[in-house]
């Protein structure tokens, strides 16, 4: 199964908070909701940085502010301090809160875990958006879809 994901291949932000904001800006939600989603992601990061495979950050949560699994992928050639380790790939995802969401969220976590386990180094080294999305098992979602 391929998941739809928003993408910004070259991130301009240089800190964790800015990257989260830059990726949330791709979401089709209002400014207030984006601010509250940033709060939820910040809480999650505060209790443990979501860095895996040395250079991949996975900020994520479930929130009542989204009605479907929403994924945004970003890449930074300069690297982003997260905050102690530098990451160059960010996969931000937010699952909704409804009856079936915990199972769907768990299934998606398994999907990401599998991709990182099998292709983590390739994901970090990917040189273009298509390659990155393919390695992660995503298809590009146009903004507003």
């Amino acid at each position: 199964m391929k998941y739809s994901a928003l993408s910004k291949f070259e991130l301009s932000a240089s800190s964790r908070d800015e990257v989260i904001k830059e990726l949330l800006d791709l979401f089709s939600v209002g400014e207030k909701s984006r601010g509250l989603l940033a709060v939820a992601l910040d809480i999650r990061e505060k209790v443990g940085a979501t860095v895996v495979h040395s250079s991949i950050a996975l900020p994520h949560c479930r929130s009542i502010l989204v009605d479907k699994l929403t994924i945004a992928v970003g890449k930074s050639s300069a690297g982003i301090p997260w905050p102690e380790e530098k990451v160059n790939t960010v996969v931000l995802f937010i699952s909704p809160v409804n009856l079936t969401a915990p199972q769907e969220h768990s299934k998606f976590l398994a999907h990401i875990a599998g991709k990182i386990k099998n292709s983590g180094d390739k994901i970090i080294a990917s040189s273009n958006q298509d390659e990155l999305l393919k390695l992660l098992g995503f298809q590009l979602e146009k903004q507003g879809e």
Partner: protein
Amino acid sequence: MDKQLEKLISLHDLDVMIADLNRKDIRKREVEMGLHTEGALEELKELRETYCKGIKRKWRGLYNQLTRHYGNAVVPALMGRCAGCLTRLPTAVCSDPERNSKIHTCPTCGRIIYWAD
């Protein structure tokens, strides 16, 4: 948006995080991804306490009561209906552009309602 409503939404998201980390399947997946979950649950619970202090007793009490009763205290309005019980919400409230500037509750189930922006 009403500041108390913002805090109630964040509290709800925080409670979902706590519930998720209490689920074996989700915790197992997070560990498989290489994330460290030890201690996270306790830290989230501490953060929850801090968060609750910023919420007025009246709304905190209602939130806790609704959570105990329904499992979810805050729900979005969808097409003019409460997403919790599907009751049609008053048209005057739904059409008010400032509807999120105060806390509204569903006239039937009592859940706290917000309108997505």
